């Protein structure tokens, strides 16, 4: 039987066994956290412009600052800021998890799951705390 190659170079009909692909795994916490780490990183990358825009407003004088600050205090902007702040904490605590793994610890399924849960909890608590304090003062 002649072998055929697909565009990705895998042999078909040659009796080769492919390694299991992503879709055969049951979705789990560590998988979701891993994907979210990259997505939150990419979102935060572009969100830095929000912080810089606010600083530019502050540097440009009272009139432009009033415009920028007004934008930041509108409801849609607050929702976006809240989401960005959560992603910042999510990525930060998720990153600490990666530093723990870099040290060679926490690789068992149980510890990996537990690290995921802890970082998720810390991210939620930190976001809530910052917004509570920001609102209250």
């Amino acid at each position, binding site marked *: 039987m002649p072998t055929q190659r697909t565009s990705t170079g895998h042999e078909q009909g040659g009796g080769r066994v492919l390694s299991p692909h992503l879709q055969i795994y049951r979705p789990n916490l560590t998988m979701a956290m891993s994907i979210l780490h990259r997505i939150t990183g990419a979102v935060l990358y572009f969100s*830095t412009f929000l912080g810089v825009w606010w600083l530019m407003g*502050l540097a440009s004088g009272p009139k432009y600052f009033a415009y920028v600050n007004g934008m930041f205090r509108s409801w849609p902007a607050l929702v976006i800021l809240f989401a960005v702040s959560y992603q910042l904490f999510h990525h930060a605590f998720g990153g600490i998890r990666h530093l723990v793994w870099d040290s060679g610890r926490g690789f068992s399924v149980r510890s990996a799951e537990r690290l995921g849960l802890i970082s998720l909890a810390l991210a939620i608590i930190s976001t809530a705390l910052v917004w509570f304090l920001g609102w209250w003062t």
Partner: protein
Amino acid sequence: MSRQGRQQRQAALPPRRRTTPLRRARGLGAAHDGTAHFMAQRATAAVSFLMLFILAIVFVLLAGADYEQARRIVGEPLVATALVFTAAAFCWHMKLGMQVIIEDYVHHELLKYALLTANVLFCSAIFFLALISIGRVVFSL
């Protein structure tokens, strides 16, 4: 080539071109780079993590501030330094992170290098905008 032959050939070369097998293998990984990127990503991550808590405090302080109050807070030398430091750590870290994403998903050589260049320009621009804005607030007080 025999071991002795190789040694003789190496000795005939100028010192900079005498290479060991390890030296030749360096830079041949997927990113044509060594561990420098990996280590820098971890180092900037650790610094960014610490700065995040200072950023959170500044955020809370600024939450209810008007223009004059905000300028006074940001213009405070400690706050301004912390903010510039945070911007440096964040921008460096996000340059490294986005580089990995581009290297992972973009396989067209020309597009890849165009995006890698755009990545450096974007991160530099964000850092310089933050630096200039904070500087203007600090030096106008």
